[in-house]
């Protein structure tokens, strides 16, 4: 039960900067997800907290202890590895008991904790088996049970579900969320899967090129992306971005149509960001919607729950979520307008969202 504070942590591998001065505080019992594409530094950051990697600069605090000079075993952490790292030469029981044996707990306590965590992860009937006799999902459960058995202050998970098939991943996601909420540990969870991140996290820290671009709740990250990268990385399909030229007085020219935007002449150009589902499509241009934009439908993807239309607007890509009954055909002209309070503005120079 502890807060994690990461102060100005940086990591260099030779000339490559894997992490640029990261500041992040994770509250006691919070479930924080580090989300980013591969190579963004999220695993490196997790391994620095674990003590498997040494930071080039900065401090890591767990609770009121500075831990960056301590060995992993002295940090009060447990970890779940991407490839599970379930020891093949030990039975499931001994795997779960590994940390407890190293801490030299008495046999009765070891048995008690192993049995409790095993039943928590629903693997109590597998205790005598070896890792080679388990499925991927079962191995994953063993890895989590092994981590929980040590009753850590901090639980670190490195893409724990990435090796499971889609259905199993969904099942484990919900289960892990329940188990971790009960265990009351502070958790850092690394993933490149945005659905996983959004469904599990109390807070998501989106990483890109060694920076944390935004750290906020799932809804906030989705609705109010702090940067172009966040908008285009999160959401499937991602946010649409359209170039806007200033017309003065808070009006902006987006693909030949006037759109109300931020006042102030300091930006030579902006980008309008809008989620595909925050677009209203009109039957035909009418006086009721004098400011509607038009788009040419290129590709239609019927996805069951909705119809995804990829369109061209003034040579820019626009994706629109349509009702699954919509009668659009490729080549059709679509008349649309963005839901005004869902529009976000981005500065193309800094790629950051306007405040």
């Amino acid at each position, binding site marked *: 039960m502890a807060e994690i504070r990461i102060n100005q942590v940086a990591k260099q591998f030779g000339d490559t900067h894997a992490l640029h001065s990261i500041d992040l505080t994770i509250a006691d019992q919070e479930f924080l997800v580090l989300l980013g594409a591969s190579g963004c530094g999220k695993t490196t950051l997790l391994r620095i907290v674990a003590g*498997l990697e040494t930071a080039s600069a900065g401090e890591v605090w767990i609770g009121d202890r500075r831990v960056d000079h301590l060995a*992993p*075993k002295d940090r009060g952490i447990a970890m779940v590895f991407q490839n599970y*790292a379930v020891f093949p*030469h030990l039975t499931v029981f001994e795997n779960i008991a590994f940390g407890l044996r190293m801490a030299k707990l008495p046999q009765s306590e070891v048995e008690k904790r192993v049995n409790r965590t095993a039943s928590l992860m629903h693997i109590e009937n597998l205790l005598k088996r070896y890792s080679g006799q388990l499925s991927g999902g079962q191995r994953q459960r063993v890895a989590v049970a092994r981590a929980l058995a040590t009753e850590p202050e901090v639980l670190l998970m490195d893409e724990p579900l990435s090796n499971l098939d889609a259905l199993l991943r969904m099942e484990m996601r919900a289960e892990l969320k329940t188990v971790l909420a009960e265990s009351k540990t502070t958790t850092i969870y690394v993933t490149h899967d945005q659905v996983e991140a959004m469904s599990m996290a109390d807070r998501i820290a989106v990483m890109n090129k060694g920076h944390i671009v935004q750290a906020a709740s799932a809804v906030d990250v989705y609705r109010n992306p702090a940067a172009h990268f966040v908008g285009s990385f999160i959401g499937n399909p991602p946010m649409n971005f359209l170039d806007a030229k200033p017309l003065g007085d808070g009006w902006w020219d987006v693909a030949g149509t006037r759109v109300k935007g931020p006042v102030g002449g300091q930006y030579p150009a902006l980008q309008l960001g809008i989620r595909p589902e925050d677009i209203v499509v009109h039957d035909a241009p009418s006086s009721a919607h004098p400011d509607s934009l038009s788009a040419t439908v290129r590709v239609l993807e019927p996805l069951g729950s909705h119809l995804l239309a990829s369109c061209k607007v003034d040579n820019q890509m626009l994706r629109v979520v349509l009702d699954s009954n919509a009668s659009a055909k490729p080549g059709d002209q679509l008349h649309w307008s963005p839901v005004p309070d869902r529009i976000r503005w981005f500065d193309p120079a800094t790629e950051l969202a306007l405040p």
Partner: protein
Amino acid sequence: MYSRNLPYLLLLPATLFLCIFFLYPFVLVAWQAFVSDTGEFTSEYFMEMATHWKFNTALTNTFMLALAVVPFQIALALYMATLVNGMKRGRDLILYVWTIPLGISDLAAGIIWLAIFEQTGFLNSMLQGLGVIEQPVGFLGYQSKGTIFLAIVLAEIWRATAIVLVILVAGMGLIPKEYYEAAEVFGASRWKQFTRITLPMLKPSLQTAMILRVILAFEVFAVVVALGGTNLPILMGEIYTWQYDLRDSSVAAAYALVVLAISIAFTLLIMWGLRTPKGARV
């Protein structure tokens, strides 16, 4: 071109080779050991071998040598392999240097160590030069069986540890790093990581290395001859003596079968002792 017989056809040369050069001589040796001149089955040659005054000494010496050499070699090779695997740079260089003795024949190795230990050897001249001794000491004389034994043990360790090392280094390289990281996170010290992760996961390599070394240890010959002559009788030495000095191929064959039986027994013992439980294989 492909037919169902092709695999067998391709296996044929190797099978023929094994039959002509291994199976056939083996049958001949067994025949010699068990069948008398008149063509009857007999245990007379085994009796002659076992009742000879040198048999027990040779058997004991061979076992003692294997016991003194092999466990030490395994431990040393484990230590050396751990060092090599922990190195970031120069790993290959060190490995090459350490494996140089592998390229030297066992007789040559025996002669190198003879040059150190003999009366006019390096050790004596060094000790004399340092003023530790007045006169050269006969380390390898027939009265000093202890030092002969020690010299042979040293020479064998110097000569044949590298083969164990090579096998273990390769084996250690196959253990995924993630297991060590998991062990480290869950509180295992360096030593615990070695005993709880490295050793159990190295079992297949240890098995190979030990079988190889134990068999070779029971066949030790040239180094013993070079350093001890006939002062320290061993099984392989007795085979040679019976075959070429006493001109009795049948007793020599009986000896050879004894060495074979010991090798098979130890191979089975090691395979059983270092077996991996079903399901625990990676």
